[in-house]
Each structure stands twice: as structure tokens, then as C-alpha cells.
């Protein structure tokens, strides 16, 4: 059983008014301190490779996305945000997505897709902002998801570092 010991109040405290004045003086002093608010759109949040923003598809240096539509991310996604329809391609990889959609309204930015991808084709970018006028506009297709590899390089290196650390413990 928890017994809460209440503090005996002094007369001044019970009179209340002195305490009121003390409180007022406290808030008054705070009045002149510098705000710590971040003025968001003008001062965006700092992001780095650890930031888990929205997932994006890597465009390799040859201009193609690395994805082979294996569906690993789709099945790993806990939010059922990803829908992929594959198809044949003449490229070496034989298979590529004909439709690759991430419903950003569903995505919970968990990064499972990044972890599941066997082809290093999807990575968490540092893009965090998400707004549109329609729901359909927030279902991102391949074109909206494409990012050049250079834009994601920091994250890619980070993931590799992380995985290597994990591997060396095996």
C-alpha cells in the first residue's frame, strides 16, 4: 500500500496570497527569457542519416531504379502501405516494377522496407514533409518515389555500417 505523506503547510502557505505572489513573480521572470520554439518552416528540423523519413526508391547511376519488384518490402510493411505489380523487362535484372506505390498516409516510417530489401533499392530518405489536397495525391508512384542514389548516399552508407556491425558479431 502506498501511503502518501502530505506536507504540513505553513501559515504563509495556507494564507495562499504570499504563494500567489511567489508564483506571479516566477512567471514574470520567465516572461523575459528567450523563446526556445523552433520556427518550423523557416528553421527546418535538422536531419542526418539516422533520420527515418519517408522511404524512397534508389535510382542507380545508369538511370534505372534498383528495384526488381521482389515484393519483400511489400510483405514486410506492417502498415500495408506498399503495393507492387511486377513485370518483365529486357534489362539484366529481368523483372521490374510496373507499379510501385507507397501510400504515404499509411506509411508509419518504420523502415522495415529498407531492412527487407535484398537489392538496396529502397531507403529511408530524410524527407519528412507530407501534404497534399487529396488522398490520392499522397499515394506515391514510382516517379514520385525516385531519388538519385547520391541524395540517399549518406543513409545507404549508414545502413551498411549498421549491418556490418551486426554481421561482425555473428
Amino acid at each position, binding site marked *: 500500500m502506498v501511503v502518501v505523506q502530505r506536507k504540513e503547510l505553513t501559515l504563509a502557505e495556507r494564507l495562499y496570497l504570499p504563494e500567489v505572489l511567489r508564483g506571479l513573480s516566477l512567471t514574470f521572470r*520567465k516572461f523575459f527569457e528567450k523563446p526556445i520554439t523552433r520556427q518550423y518552416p523557416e528553421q527546418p528540423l535538422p536531419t542526418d542519416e539516422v533520420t527515418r523519413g519517408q522511404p524512397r526508391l534508389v535510382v542507380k547511376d545508369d538511370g534505372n531504379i534498383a528495384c526488381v519488384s521482389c515484393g519483400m518490402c511489400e510483405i514486410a510493411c506492417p502498415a500495408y502501405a506498399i503495393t507492387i505489380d511486377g513485370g518483365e523487362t529486357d534489362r539484366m535484372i529481368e523483372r521490374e516494377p510496373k507499379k510501385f506505390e507507397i501510400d504515404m498516409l499509411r506509411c508509419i516510417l518504420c523502415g522495415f522496407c529498407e531492412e527487407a530489401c535484398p537489392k538496396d533499392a529502397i531507403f529511408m530518405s530524410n524527407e519528412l514533409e507530407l501534404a497534399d489536397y487529396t488522398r490520392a495525391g499522397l499515394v506515391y508512384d514510382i516517379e514520385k518515389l525516385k531519388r538519385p542514389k547520391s541524395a540517399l548516399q549518406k543513409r545507404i552508407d549508414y545502413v551498411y555500417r549498421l549491418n556490418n556491425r551486426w554481421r561482425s558479431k555473428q
Partner: protein
Amino acid sequence: MEDFVKELPVWVLWVAKVAIIFGGLVATAALMSLAERKVSAWMQYRHGPNRVGPFGLLQPLADGIKFIFKEELIPAGANKFLFRLAPALAAIPAMMTIAVIPIGTIQIGETKIPFSIAQVDLGIMYMLALGGLSVYGAILGGWASNSKYSLLGGLRASAQMISYELTLILSILVVVALSGSLDLGAIVEAQRVNGLWNVFTPFGALAFVLFTIASFAETNRHPFDFAECEPELVGGFHTEYSAMRFALFFLGEYCAMTVMACLNTTLFFGGPSVPFWANAPWYVGILAFLIKAGFFLFLFIWVRWTLPRFRFDQLMRLGWKVALPIALANLLVVGAWVAFSTKGS
């Protein structure tokens, strides 16, 4: 200039004064809604509204536009007539009471024009009578909404306002006894002539404290805002209100605050009189009045963002068991003192 003013028909002056004072009151209320947010923000290391206009100064305008364009909802089963009437009942009496506050005197050449809408002998009676009406807004709004939260909020508001009205009146009576008049102008004049504001007399000081506490309760402000009390009652008596009707309740609250601040200034702080400068020019007087009233307005906000809300039983205990006996005793002693001291002289 002086001749021109003298020759103006009387009604032009009235209209001008009404326009200035009411306009000022509404503008003050609007600015207060901004000030409330700004001050609270500064006290909490924040910026407060700063997107609309320079330093967010146009925020009240944006709010007003928003309120006008929002949809008005009337809950099913609400008493439509009373539901519509209540916001007006809350706002109008609060705005009308400003009429008798002597803000100062405008002097053009030798002509002196009292800067208040009406100079009534029974100014205090007028104020108290109208001020008592504002409880109708809360209770009718709460009752007509057909919602349990609103009803509870309305009931609390009325219980609280009636309880603290006693203390309020008793502490005003102390001032009346001290200055011997019910005319607010006379009260101010008495303080100016004595060179001593009522707050600096022992009884006046006590009355001032009681009056301030009661004025917080009367205007439903923190720490006594039980009529709204969001954690328990959603929004209290105005839970079901939206758009302009909701804005009217808001306006009423801020007008009542403004009037209370003016009244406090008038009763205890010598209205427009300036300490140690008995013959200050008229505009300095008006400025002094505004500064004093402004301080009390700031006090309202300051207290709100400092003190936590009472419990309702604590509020009632404070009202009936502490404030009222003290106020009564104070009045008795003052009465006796005044009676005997005048006899003795």
C-alpha cells in the same frame, strides 16, 4: 477649435464619445485575445501567434474572419430562441457597464468635456445592476444547449457569480463609504482631492484585495474559471456554441474583464489622477488611466497563466467562509469609523 466644439450640438459629442469608448472597448477585447496568447507564450518560452501581420498583430482580425465564416451549429433539442439570445445577454451587459466609467476629462481650451459616456449619480448602482445580468448569458446558454456539460457549466457559473457578487458589492461599498458618494466621478474626485488613492488606506487595501479576487470570479477567469473548466466540462456553458455566437461569449468575457480593470482603477487607484502631480494635463490623466487599467488587464492574464484552477468546493469555501466574512467585517468597521470620525469633526 474651442468655439467649434462649443457650437457642436450635444448629440454629436455623445455619438463621438460612444463611438470612441465602445470602439475602444471592443478593440481592447480583441487585442486582449491576442495579448492572452502572446503573454502566455512568453511566459512559456514560446513566440505566440506571429504569422498574421507584423508580430501577429492581425491575429484577432483573422480570428474574427474565421468566426464569421464558420458554420453555426444548433444542437438538436436545443431551445433555439434562448440559445440564440444567450450570447447577446452575455456580451451586451458587459459592454454597457463601461458607460459610467470616468476615463478622464478632455480639455479643449477652457472647455472641459468629461470623457465618459454618462455621468450618473448612481453610477455604481448602474454598474452592479447591469453586471448582475451577465450571469444570464452563462446560465441560459448552458441550459438552452441541451447538453449536460453546458448545463453543469451554466449552473456553476451562476452559483459562482452570485456568491462572489456579494463580496464584490461589499468591497465596493467600502469605497463608497470612504468617499461618500455613489457617483464614480465623485469617487475619483475624492481620491484626487485627498491625494490618497483608496488602495493606500488600510480598509481600502483590504477591500482592493477582496475586490480583485471577486472580480476574477465574476469574470469567470482563472483560477476561478469553473464555468468552462475544460478537463471536466469540455467547454462549460459554451460547449455547443460555434462561430460568431461563440465569439460573442468570448467578447463578453473580455469586455467584462476590461470593465473590471477600469473599475478597479477607478475605485482604488484614483482613476485618471496622477500621483504627485495634481494638475497634470488632461491627456496625461487619460494616459494614466489607460496604463492603470492596462496593468489590471495584464494581471488577469498573468494570474491565469500562473495559478492552477481551484476545486469547486474550494471556490465556494473561499467565497462564503473567507471572503464574505472579511468583506462584511471590513464594511462594518469602515462604516463605524466613517460614522464616528465625521461625528467627531
